[in-house]
C-alpha cells in the first residue's frame, strides 16, 4: 500500500482535484487491490440504482401521526393513574403524621391479624369444599388421574372447537 492508495476513498467520493484524479487513474492500471475495490463499489452502486423507488401512500403521514397520538394518549393515561396513586400515598403519609405513628401501627397490626384470620378461614373453606368435590367419585387413590384426564380432554375439545368455529366461512 503506497500513498496513492490512500486516495481511494476520496476518489470514490469524487472530491479529488483533477491532477490527483489522473494520478489515481494511472495507479489503478497496475494496483489490483484498488481496482477491485473500485469495481466492487461501482457494482454496489448499480445494484442500488436497480431497486425501484417506493411511493409512500398519501395517508402514510396521517397513519403515523395517529399512532403517535394513540401512544401519547396512553402515556397520558398512565401519568394520570400514576399521579392519582402518588396523591393517595402523599395524603396517607400526611394522615399518618397527624394520627400518630404508634396508633397507625397498632391498627395495622389488628387489621393484618384479622386479615390473617380471614385468609386462614378462607383457606379452610376452599380446602373443605374442594375435598368434597374431589371425593365425588368415592375416596379412591386415582381420583386425581380421572380429574386430570377430564381436564385435559375438556380443554382439548374447547381449543379445537374455538379453532373450528373461527375457521368457518360466514
Amino acid at each position, binding site marked *: 500500500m503506497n500513498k496513492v492508495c490512500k486516495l481511494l476513498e476520496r476518489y470514490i467520493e469524487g472530491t479529488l482535484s483533477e491532477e490527483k484524479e489522473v494520478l489515481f487513474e494511472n495507479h489503478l492500471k497496475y494496483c489490483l487491490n484498488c481496482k477491485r475495490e473500485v469495481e466492487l463499489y461501482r457494482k454496489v452502486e448499480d445494484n442500488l440504482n436497480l431497486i425501484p423507488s417506493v411511493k409512500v401512500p398519501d395517508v402514510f403521514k396521517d397513519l403515523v401521526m395517529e399512532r403517535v397520538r394513540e401512544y401519547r394518549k396512553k402515556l397520558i393515561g398512565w401519568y394520570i393513574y400514576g399521579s392519582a396513586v402518588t396523591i393517595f400515598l402523599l395524603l396517607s403519609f400526611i394522615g399518618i403524621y397527624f394520627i400518630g405513628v404508634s396508633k397507625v401501627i397498632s391498627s395495622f397490626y389488628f387489621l393484618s391479624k384479622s386479615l390473617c384470620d380471614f385468609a386462614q378461614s378462607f383457606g379452610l*373453606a376452599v380446602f*373443605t369444599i374442594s375435598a368434597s368435590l374431589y*371425593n365425588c367419585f368415592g375416596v379412591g387413590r386415582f*381420583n386425581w388421574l380421572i380429574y386430570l384426564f377430564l*381436564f385435559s380432554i375438556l380443554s382439548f375439545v*374447547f381449543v*379445537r372447537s374455538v*379453532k373450528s368455529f373461527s375457521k368457518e366461512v360466514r
Partner: protein
Amino acid sequence: MRRILFSIGFLLITFFYSSFSFSKGTRLYMFPAHKVVIKKPVYGDILVIGQDVEVLNVIEGSVSVIGGSIKIKGEVSKNCVSIGGNVELLNGKVGGEIVTIGELFGKNRLYWFFLNSLFWIITIGFGLYFYGDRLKENAFEFADDFMRLFFFGFYSLIIFVLLGLISFALIQIGVGIVLFFVISLLFSIIYLFSVLTIFYFFGNSVSGFLKLNVSDAVKMLLGLSIYQALKFVPLFGFLAFTVILSASFGATIYSKFGTFKPWFGMPRFWGE
C-alpha cells in the same frame, strides 16, 4: 358446526356419567328447589350450592354450603363451611371447625349494589380509555351475529364452569391451584371485556333510539344503568342477562377481544 354439536354431546355424556356415578359417600346438591334436610345418617361429605341445609342426623364428613346457611341439630364430624350465610348450632355438635365467609354482604344487597356500581364505573373508565376501539368492534360483532355467538358463548361458559370445578377439585393435589388460577384469570378477563361490550351495545342502541348525540363514556354509563336495572326484574332480568352475556362471551372469544386476529395461528377465510 357439526363438530361443535358432537363435542357438546360428548361433554353432556361425561357430565351426566359423573353425576350418576357418585358413590354413597359424597352428596352434591346444585340449586335444589327446597331446603335440604338430612334425616338419615351420611358417611361422606355434603356440598350444597344455592340453598339452606338442616342437619338432623349424624354426618361422618364435612358440610359445605355456597350461598346458603346451615342449621345443625345433629352431629357433624368434620368442618362446617358456609359462604354467604351463617352456621347455627341448635343442640348440635361439630367435630371440626366452623367457617362463615361473607355473611355481612350476603344479607345486605345494597352494599353489593354500590360496590358493584363503583367497580364497573372504574372498569368503564379503564376499558374505554385503553381499549375503546376494540370494545366498539366487539359490540358491532355482537350485534351482527347474535344467535350463533349465543350458542358458542353458552357452550364456552359451560366449559369454563366445568374446567373451574375440575381444577378446584384438583386443589387437593396442589396442581389445581395453578390450573384454577389460570382458568379464573382467563375467565375474568373475558367476562370483563364481554360486560363492557354489553354496556356499549346497550348505551349505543338506546342513544340511537332516542336520537341522542352523546359521548362514548355517557353511552357506557347508560348501559351500566340498564344493566343494574335488569337485576331488579324478577326471572326475566336473569334470563336476559344470561342470554346476552353468553352472546357477548362468544363475541369476545370469536373476535379475540375485538382484534379479529386468529387464535392459535389459524388463518381467517372470511371478511378480510
